[in-house]
């Protein structure tokens, strides 16, 4: 199809599809009138059953924890896929990671950016760590915490210290950490199986008070493993992408 044909054909067919979709959407109960029962059933029992005050985390890591296993491995596979596709190929050489600024007119990172980036690195790590390990209370949990942890590393790169960034996150170590995170989650579930319970049953002590630091059993533990897996996966992805632009070039 020529681009013009394609555009016109799509406008007609797409209008049809959108109209069909709207026709179906009009059958929904109005916005704000959620009928239940799944959400209401969980809201009734979640805090009592799991001692977690963050119900979304309870769903993610307990009620529907098995979905989260799959989702975590999707991220794992994506990191592996990025590494596979962007690896150093035959016919390409990796530029040795030395400082090439000597004698070259490279614009230095502005001091403002450096300062802000370095200033934020510490608090970001802290925030990420807290989010990842306190999933039972905060509206977040392992995934967001992991992203924040990865952001800290990226802040180091942004502050102009690419070599420091590379040294702090060698690909092999990141690989291992990611795999430990993913495998750890699976193993926690299997521990329940080993005890004769259903896979991923919350078997650790639930604590006395809902929302306390050491409450909600396996939810906090799983969230921690997910956090380090997500952090490692994102660091790996960003490293591969940066390697492509900064280190690898064609040559014999």
């Amino acid at each position, binding site marked *: 199809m020529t681009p013009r044909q394609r555009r016109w054909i*799509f406008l007609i067919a797409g209008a049809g599809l959108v109209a069909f979709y709207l026709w179906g959407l009009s059958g929904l109960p*109005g916005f704000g009138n959620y009928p239940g029962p799944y959400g209401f059933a969980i809201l009734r029992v979640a805090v009592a059953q799991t001692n977690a005050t963050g119900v*979304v985390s309870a769903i993610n890591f307990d009620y529907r924890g098995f979905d989260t296993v799959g989702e975590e491995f999707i991220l794992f596979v994506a990191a592996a896929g990025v590494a596979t596709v962007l690896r150093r190929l035959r016919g390409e050489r990796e530029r040795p990671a030395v400082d090439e600024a000597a004698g070259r007119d490279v614009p230095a990172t502005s001091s403002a950016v450096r300062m802000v980036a370095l200033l934020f690195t510490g608090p970001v790590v802290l925030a990420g760590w807290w989010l990842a390990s306190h999933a039972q209370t905060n509206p977040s949990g392992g995934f967001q915490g992991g992203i924040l942890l990865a952001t800290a590393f990226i802040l180091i790169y942004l502050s102009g210290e690419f070599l420091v960034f590379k040294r702090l996150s060698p690909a092999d170590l990141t690989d291992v950490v990611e795999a430990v995170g993913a495998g750890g989650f699976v193993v926690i579930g299997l521990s329940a199986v080993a005890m004769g319970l259903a896979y991923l049953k919350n078997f650790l002590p639930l604590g006395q008070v809902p929302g306390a630091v050491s409450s909600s059993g396996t939810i906090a533990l799983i969230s921690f493993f997910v956090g380090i897996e997500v952090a490692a996966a994102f660091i790996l992805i960003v490293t591969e992408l940066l390697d492509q632009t900064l280190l690898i070039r064609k040559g014999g």
Partner: protein
Amino acid sequence: MQVFPFVVVAWILGVGLYGVVTSRHLVHQIVCLIVVQSSTYVLLLGVGYVTGGVAPYFFDVPNHTPAVDPVVQACALTDVVVEAAVTAMLLAFAIQAYKRFGTLDPQELADLKG
């Protein structure tokens, strides 16, 4: 106000698909794919909304306060992670496509035909 969020859902889907179909740049196409998925976020969160409900976090709010549906929020979270993963991979493919083909125009990438 009762149907507006759902009209937005259909619109975002349409616009995203239009972007994918008429795109001449791979990165633009991948971002349009993200737009298509955004329509699912809006739909998920839209169907779970309860008028007057609070967020389902009972740390400072007494337990059993009417809250919005937490299940769709968990689903949307899963959805976001899936989308991030797929996007990362697609962008890696785009980088390699540029290196192999020298162009990012999907209409020029036609090495396989027929």
